[in-house]
């Protein structure tokens, strides 16, 4: 399967995503450049973490106007899978690929730690290799991760099973003190209505090998592979 990782000016986890896909999963990786007008035939697009355009103004606000984003939106409209990780999640929201917005952490501090999230649904092409309710250890590292949307949107996300990951405590329960950034309803990751665009604040690509603390992110990418049956 062919994964394309986009590099925006200021992306800093593009290499991490690329290596997780190629070195760890043994899949084909394609480095895509923000000025490109072509996705070069990739099956999955990854919008990586980092600080595109310095995150100046608002995280993800400027990157969404990059030339390549037009192709990404078209790819998503065709039903092609897109994974927005951290800054990529912010870009996806700004681009309207996902509902809501990611605001400054409630603590007003950048937060970096190995957090816990619970898999809320395995019925997505990004989570079918997890067990229902499975608790994952994934690194987070962000200053703007407070997921925010109006109540109607939140209700709709819940009803449609679009909430994929939620922050939980060591017991696996949602708990405001286990929500590292003040996200509404503890939301760490969502899919769009059609189920082909995933956005999440934690970094599955940084949790691809036990040697660096966790390999719990691997199954996210394996879920995509299972779908296509490569």
């Amino acid at each position: 399967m062919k994964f394309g990782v986009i590099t925006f000016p200021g992306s800093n986890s593009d290499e991490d995503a690329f290596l997780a896909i190629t070195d760890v999963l043994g899949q084909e990786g394609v480095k895509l450049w923000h000025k490109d007008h072509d996705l070069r035939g990739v099956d999955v697009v990854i919008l990586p973490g980092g600080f595109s355009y310095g995150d100046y103004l608002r995280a993800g606000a400027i990157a969404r106007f990059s030339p390549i984003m037009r192709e990404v939106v078209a790819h998503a409209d065709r039903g092609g899978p897109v994974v927005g990780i951290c800054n990529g999640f912010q870009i996806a929201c700004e681009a309207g690929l996902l509902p809501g917005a990611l605001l400054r952490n409630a603590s007003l501090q950048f937060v970096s730690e190995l957090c816990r999230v619970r898999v809320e649904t395995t019925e997505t092409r990004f989570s079918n290799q997890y067990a229902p309710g499975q608790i994952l250890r994934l690194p987070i590292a962000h200053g703007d991760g407070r997921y925010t949307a109006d109540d109607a949107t939140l209700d709709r996300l819940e009803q449609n099973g679009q909430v994929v990951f939620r922050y939980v405590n060591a017991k696996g329960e949602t708990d405001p003190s286990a929500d590292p950034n003040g996200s509404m309803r503890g939301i760490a990751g969502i899919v769009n209505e059609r189920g082909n665009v995933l956005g999440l604040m934690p970094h599955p690509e940084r949790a691809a090998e036990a040697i660096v603390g966790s390999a719990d992110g691997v199954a996210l990418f394996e879920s995509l592979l299972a779908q296509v049956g490569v």
Partner: protein
Amino acid sequence: MTVLPRPGDPVITPALVAEHGLTPDEYQRLVDMLGRTPTFTELGVVSALWSEHCSYKHSRPLLRTLPTKAPYVLQGPGENAGVIAVGDGLAVAFKIESHNHPSAVEPYQGAATGVGGILRDVFTMGARPIAMLNSLRFGSLDHPRVRYLFAGVVKGIGDYGNSVGVPTIGGEVVFDPAYETNPLVNAMCVGVMHERDLIRAKAEGVGNPIIAVGARTGRDGIHGASFASEDLSHESDAKRPRVQVGDPFTEKLLLEASLELIKSGHIVAIQDMGAAGLTSSSAEMAARGDVGVTIDVTKMPVREEGMTPYEILLSESQERMLVVAKRGHEAQVKEILAKWDLSAEVIGEVIAEPVYRVTEGDRVVAEFPGSRLVTDCPVYHPDARESDTIAALRARDVDAIRERPEERDAAWTLRELLSSPTIASKAWVYRQYDTSVRTNTMLGPGGDAAVLRLRGTRKALAVKTDCNGRYVYLEPRVGGRIAVAEAARNVACTGARPMAITNCLNFGNPKRPEVFFQFREAVGGMAEACETLGTPVTGGNVSLYNESPNGAVFPTPVIGMVGLADDVDHVTRATFQQAGDTIVLLGEPTSELGASEYLARVHNVTAGAPPRCDLQVERRLIDLLLEAIQAGVVSSAHDCSDGGLAVALAECAMADREQRFSATVDLSSWSGISKRAMLFGEAQGRVVVSTDSPARVERIAAARGVPVRRIGIVEAADRPFRIEYAGGQLVAPLEQLASAYHNAIPSIMTRVAVADDALAADAPSTVGS
């Protein structure tokens, strides 16, 4: 060529010379060198290059006494960063630098631009930065201004490194009134590269173009280098325009573009425009290559209108580089920078004539005879004399200090130490640092050294900064030795062999004999330790004049140590790993109590002699540790430092929030040592190890001639933490110790600090808003 004053330049007067920080003698040297009166522009250039920060005029002779050689050292002192070979065709570049004075005035930007500068020092060697560390000193957190400085510095370091995408994985923070108005902010960067990509900042090749790359030049930070060479005073506040604003976004682009440029083969040299900006970068590159250069300031891309040559030469605008390209390759250089949305402008060239010439269009505004600009700087050998006051403090009999009544319960004392901000968990700090980006972090902050795997090999790199300024204050030679030994011990605890160091020498005003004494002795102690431990010095930085109305800071020679583990399987944690393991102490307790954190925290006393440090013993300890770790018989290893054995044991038990254990320890077999020296004394050369094969650890230790003793058992976390000593015992619920340790800093920073936090949290030009 004739050099004429520019219209509008101020007349050179003794007052103007003094304002530029030059002594009458230094000014006379300048006149002799030129054979005429300097222009205002020339005065500015020399004032920057001959500032302490750029010229090392008070420190150079002593720095020459440091050992710098080992077969694996590829680049020693004198370049942007030191470089060592680590096998498999890979090399590691690393360097530490101070940003103390800028951070005292503007903590957020001061610290952020410090990180930016040290990153550039590493990637201009051709290395990709893979880790940042920081070594910080502040006054007491009881003061709102100190909380403001602390919060701002940490946020500045975090925002910058996080944005560039380099994990910040280690460091130290110490709080002591000695740093009240003059905090220390030292940042270290570590990078990896293929040996073949190593490049040096040496201008070469007559006719080669000199290219300015990166951000435009503004009026910010003019005279930062001389600013760093003065005492901090109230007037410093009035010198505000000297602060610089960092832009990590541009830095990230510059980093990628520079690495691409170096690999491309289109350039011969590259250097950061750091302190004293264009002036020092161009003069140093020319001096290293022993060539002349000419630069036209009108070609320099500027941000503001009407900038004078003086301003352009001395600006410290951030995120800029100076490149010497191969002649005829200008277009390719510009193309690589354009890909990253950065500009590159040819501003001069390398010339055969041995001069350093600056023009403004056709007019020559400054001209110096070649490398004399760098080499003619005076060198000073100041007087050195120990302060009587400090000698008396050291001689004080600290054993005569009576215990406080609360101390009858040793658990009270232990909690008191665990909640001392200097000892307590620094998670409040490093939670704000991205530690996982680049996916190499095997051990992040929180243990002894941090460890990174070296991708594509079985090896791992361990890194740590260390210095106990109180030891150096009370006995500088011993303190200098301990700084190196402790850094080495920390690295060895993780399973890595200490390889080499960089250092940042933070001292007071060297013209004061008692300060220069500290400097000389501390450097001497460092040199001895580096020699014995086999860790050469590959570079560093000197920051003098760290003084304020209250006097000099503790002399603080911060050591940045790099070590190498041959196999990732040997990487060892500081905290206990399984209940039932035997706890073994390597090394021996002593009766020493002087200079301890215990005296400072519990009795508010800074006195006594610091513990002895026998470097041969340290060396054997390191060898033994590595042998035992490689033999696979060590579950965890943690060195004893601030707070002594009791604190080390408690940290082994509960420093890891996710995985806690308790311990039952018996120290009663040492009977000649007082309870507090036993528990809280800071005897050197000690490591707490947990193991499931104590007999094998004992055999290895005995063969190396290192004292070893089984002292206890690792227990489940629900058991009380217990230490028996001759004449009593310390018992505490583990939870109590954990909460003292983990909550100390957060509770201070949220309790009263909201005001300063809110401001610091929203520093100007907020990154990742």
